[in-house]
């Protein structure tokens, strides 16, 4: 390690070669490439100063790169591996430095010490989501997320999610706004509301994210295609008009005087498969540059190639696709379809439909509905809706209860909602078929009457038909996992599961009536609140030392019951019991409890148009309006939901759904397409209905005709996971917080309902002082104190400790919080003295 001491000059050269613009390697001190790079940077800055239009748009999707799991993992691995090497070396050095060693040196031993580090490091980063890599100055939280399996759509939506590095709290519109360049790449609808709005995005249906491609072959190819190597170009050629620089991943590698030919030839090679399909090439006239991008993280999407005003995809090819002889890859291999990234897309003229192709057209859109992502693709006729409604639906579709996976009955999730009779939507879309939502649906086709009924339907509340609920509409199941670990203690004692206890008649006691002989809840048993489903017992001497007595041989072990008790307003059934072993070899029991729920007042429903509502009333079937056929609606929706929300798509869904029902077909509501309203009206008329979808209805209560025609037909409704049963809460008396003796807060702690500041203001304004006293003190933390009238401090038991007397002691009731405040003030050497006098 005796490197020669470098001179300052050498050190400077070394720094320029390796640290400055480090991605360009310098060989044999040939700085030309690096010099050109820096010169180009300067040139761009100067050009931008001269013409501000040339400033790059940082929100432009073509200037963005997505970071994928592989990149993040490789960084993490590099960091961990280098750390491992360092630690290993440091360890060896420490030993080898010693002048004399007691034992023989074994390097393997030291490898083994640190062998775990990489694994544990990876595990920790993945499970916590914290990527803190000092080496790369990276400190990020929330990199990984647990895939939500609450519904099929939520899992799918999570896998297409892209989160921006941008700070959420900052109020800027630029990065959040819809960028025209994200057309077809990122879904235009699917983004959360609130602080992450526009920063969390979702991929559109057909996007692909590139990975790194090798540079060297592409560089060679450029030279072969006639571009002149930058190392032999003189400065005069660089600056002559008409000479284009060829940039590979941002570095100038060559020049060409025929950029159009060069690009065309390069594209030809890509289409024939000689270059990776994901390498993009495009010209930028302002910069006189031909850019070739082969780096990873670019978003790209496939488009049909158009040549001489004609689509390369012909009927014969589509026939092959239909017959199953060809797949998508065949179209790619045969050069009918190619992937374009955002920059190259900008360099092309893309026709939306085949009829729009003109001579200059270079590409044809495969399907316009692919501008939306998988989640937004569920919405029927989204192009007729007000745009925020589609965004709301994207958030709500993920909360819908339905089928989540084919293995759903065998899964043991912490919380799982399933629908008993999910249906595929009457009005589906091509996206639904592509993502197979029709196989794992989340919702049911409800017959909806858009009318006002009973007054329990204001503010988006829904009226449900009781008979429909009786017949299984909206019925769902909730499965909850409960785990229990049988611990082992250092003194060789361990937790056990014991059988049931019986009363004098020999029947199991109420608490244990759901247990089997093994002390576990029997599969299929009903468990009511207060009953036990795992009868765990803990040894009484668990904390005793290891030393006392020999294990196993000594006296009978004493146990204390520590059962798993079910506490909920509604009973559950044991669905599955799993026995397993935890990480540290302790027995693990998982009990899956199931509840079947029928819709009730307050349960949340939503159509696929961001129109959510809670059930306001459940009405008997005979009270429901009915039409000539005797059909009653399942749901009555208030018409006030339409004018301000402008969800025309929902109306179209109803008409198409009705036509489909009458016709026995499934209709399409695909974005920018779908079944046409005229055709649907035609079907309705042919089947003897009004063209508008409005029927004459009879009132179920009076039997008379309703004076208005009612918009009546099927709409796909989703049941959302928010149910009253999980939220209902009330308290009369209950637990109190230890410090303040006030009632606890929150449903989970059986807390009180707060009379807040604004409510207090109302009571004051109203002048209900006794009510105020009751709410704020008597029902909360009333406390009797003894106040000494002499010194004004608080005493106890009729005795004032500071005056040392029991004269002038008055009993009074104050909030405990006030007493606490006084004592805290006293502890700070401030004496709050109470001066009592009669008011009345």
């Amino acid at each position, binding site marked *: 390690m005796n490197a020669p001491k470098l001179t300052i000059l050498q050190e400077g050269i070394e720094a320029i070669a390796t640290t400055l613009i480090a991605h360009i390697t310098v060989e044999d001190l040939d700085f030309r490439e690096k010099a050109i790079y820096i010169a180009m940077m300067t040139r761009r800055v100067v050009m931008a100063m001269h013409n501000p239009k040339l400033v790059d748009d940082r929100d432009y999707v073509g200037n963005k790169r997505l970071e994928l799991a592989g990149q993040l993992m490789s960084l993490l691995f590099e960091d961990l591996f280098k750390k491992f090497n360092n630690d290993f070396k440091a360890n060896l050095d420490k030993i080898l430095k010693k002048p004399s060693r007691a034992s023989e040196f074994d390097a393997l031993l030291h490898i083994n010490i640190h062998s775990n580090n990489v694994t544990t490091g990876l595990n920790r980063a993945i499970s916590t989501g914290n990527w803190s890599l000092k080496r790369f100055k990276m400190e990020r939280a929330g990199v990984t997320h647990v895939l939500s399996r609450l519904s099929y759509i939520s899992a799918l939506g999570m896998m297409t999610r892209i989160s921006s590095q941008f700070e959420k709290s900052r109020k800027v519109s630029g990065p959040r706004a819809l960028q025209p360049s994200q057309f077809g790449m990122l879904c235009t609808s699917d983004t959360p509301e609130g602080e992450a709005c526009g920063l969390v995005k979702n991929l559109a249906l057909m996007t692909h994210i590139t990975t790194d491609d090798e540079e060297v072959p592409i560089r060679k190819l450029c030279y072969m295609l006639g571009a002149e190597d930058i190392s032999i170009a003189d400065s005069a050629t660089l600056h002559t008009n008409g000479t284009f620089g060829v940039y590979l991943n941002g570095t100038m590698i060559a020049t060409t005087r025929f950029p159009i030919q060069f690009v065309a030839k390069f594209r030809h090679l890509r289409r024939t498969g000689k270059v990776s399909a994901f390498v993009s090439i495009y010209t930028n006239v302002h910069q006189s540059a031909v850019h070739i991008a082969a780096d990873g993280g670019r978003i790209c999407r496939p488009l049909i190639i158009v040549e001489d005003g004609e689509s390369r995809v012909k009927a014969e090819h589509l026939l092959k696709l239909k017959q199953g002889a060809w797949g998508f890859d065949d179209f790619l291999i045969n050069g009918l379809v190619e992937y374009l990234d955002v920059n190259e897309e900008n360099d092309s003229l893309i026709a939306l439909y085949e009829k729009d192709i003109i001579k200059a057209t270079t590409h044809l859109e495969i399907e316009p509905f692919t501008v939306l992502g998988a989640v937004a693709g569920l919405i029927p006729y989204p192009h007729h809706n007000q745009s925020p409604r589609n965004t709301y639906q994207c958030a709500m579709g993920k909360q819908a209860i339905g089928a989540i996976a084919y293995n759903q009955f065998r899964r043991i999730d912490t919380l799982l909602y399933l629908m008993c009779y999910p249906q595929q939507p009457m009005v589906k879309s091509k996206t639904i078929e592509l993502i197979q939502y029709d196989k794992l649906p989340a919702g049911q086709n409800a017959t909806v009457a858009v009318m006002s009924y009973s007054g329990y339907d204001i503010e988006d509340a829904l009226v449900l038909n009781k008979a429909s609920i009786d017949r299984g509409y909206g019925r769902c199941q909730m499965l909850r996992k409960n785990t229990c670990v049988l611990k082992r203690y250092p003194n060789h004692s361990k937790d056990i599961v014991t059988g049931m206890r019986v009363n004098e008649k020999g029947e199991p006691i109420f608490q244990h009536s759901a247990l089997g002989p093994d002390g576990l809840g029997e599969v299929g048993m009903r468990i009511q609140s207060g009953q036990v489903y795992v009868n765990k017992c803990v040894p009484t001497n668990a904390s005793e030392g290891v030393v006392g007595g020999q294990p196993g041989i000594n006296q009978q072990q004493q146990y204390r019951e520590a059962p798993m008790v079910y506490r909920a307003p509604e009973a559950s059934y044991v669905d599955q019991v799993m026995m397993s072993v935890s990480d540290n070899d302790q027995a693990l029991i998982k009990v899956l409890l199931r509840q079947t729920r029928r819709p009730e007042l307050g349960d949340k429903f939503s159509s696929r148009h961001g129109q959510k509502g809670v059930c306001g009333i459940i009405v008997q079937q005979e009270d429901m309006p009915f039409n*000539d056929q005797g059909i009653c609606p399942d749901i009555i929706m208030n018409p006030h939901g339409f004018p301000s929300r402008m969800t025309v798509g929902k109306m179209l869904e109803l008409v198409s759904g009705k036509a489909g029902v009458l016709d026995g077909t499934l209709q399409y509501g695909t974005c920018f397409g779908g079944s046409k309203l005229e055709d649907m009206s035609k079907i309705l008329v042919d089947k003897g209905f009004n063209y508008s979808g409005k029927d004459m209805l009879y009132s179920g209560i009076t039997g008379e005709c309703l004076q208005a025609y009612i918009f009546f037909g099927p709409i796909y409704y989703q049941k959302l996971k928010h149910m009253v049963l999980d939220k209902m809460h009330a308290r009369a008396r209950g637990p109190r917080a230890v410090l303040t003796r006030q009632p606890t807060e929150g449903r989970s702690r059986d807390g009180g309902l707060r009379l807040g500041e604004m409510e207090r203001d109302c009571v004051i304004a109203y002048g209900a002082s006794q009510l105020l006293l009751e709410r704020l003190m008597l029902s909360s933390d009333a406390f009797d104190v003894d106040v000494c009238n002499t010194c004004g401090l608080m005493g106890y038991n009729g005795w004032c400790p500071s005056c040392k007397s029991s004269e002038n002691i008055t009993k009074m009731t104050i909030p405990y919080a006030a007493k606490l405040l006084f004592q805290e003030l006293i502890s700070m050497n401030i004496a709050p003295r109470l001066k009592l006098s009669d008011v009345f």
Partner: protein
Amino acid sequence: MSNIVGIEHDRVTNTVSTDFPGYSIEANNEFDIEEFKKKFQINISYITERTANFDLIGIDTSIANAFRRIMIAEVPSVAAEHVYVFNNTSVIQDEVLAHRIGLIPLKVDPDTLTWVDQTVDEKDRFTDDNTIVLSLDVVCTKNPNAVPGDNRAENLYRNSNVYAKDLKFEPQGRQTETFEKNPVVPCDPNILLAKLRPGQEISLRVHCILGIGSDHAKFSPVSTASYRLLPVIDILKPIAGSDALEFQKCFPSGVIDIKENGEAFVKDARKDTVSREVLRHEKFNGKVKLGRQRDHFIFNVESTGAMPPEEIFFKSVRVLRNKAEYLRNCPIGNLN
């Protein structure tokens, strides 16, 4: 006032009947049983095993609607209420299976059962008077004689599908005699209850009791019972020629026919579905008036199969009569 409900292009007019006492000074409108007897008609279009279609003419909406409501909600019928599951290893959960069993219509004459008294202790609550016991015991096995190459579950396994017909009636006590001639069976034997695979089995027992539709839809004896008003089509000005053909197309076939002179006439207004298509056409504006006769109810009763549809209607009349009787005997209403 006419008793024709007006069907306009955007609204329904004259929906409310006014022939009750006290509505106007001129007409008395007092209910007269003789007058009613003269006016009232029942025309039966058809009665099949499951559906009945008949007209009630000359009756007030409230009464007709009462029949409809009672048929849906208050005519008692028998359905499964308690399911005791001994073993169920199929994919379908106990509650869902029980729910499905509950919804199966059973062929039981409700008059053979008495009401279950909910106040009686649970042990003695169910007797041979008020409860019918069904049992379902199915085990799925591999079919040893399966035809190779045919991968349908029906071929590969035995009992892979559990149907309503697999529910077996278990007569209790006197039921052996009372139900000897017509044992309890599901009305529709091929309702799928569950699907099984080899090694799975279902073993359960069902208690069926009497109930009414307002309690639970499974007790409703009808799939639906409803009425519609008789459509009326008035051609105000003659429509002839090509217009007549177009006019004919605005209605379902058989409603409008064309005379030899090319003029359209109403052949059978009853067949009209009142789609109001004709009101969309400018050219028929003022030439035709649509309406529905307010006191002509075309009833359609679809039985679930337990009772013949006409019997359901008779029972609804009986229930209504009992209600009227009850009201008459009420101390407050007892004015006579």
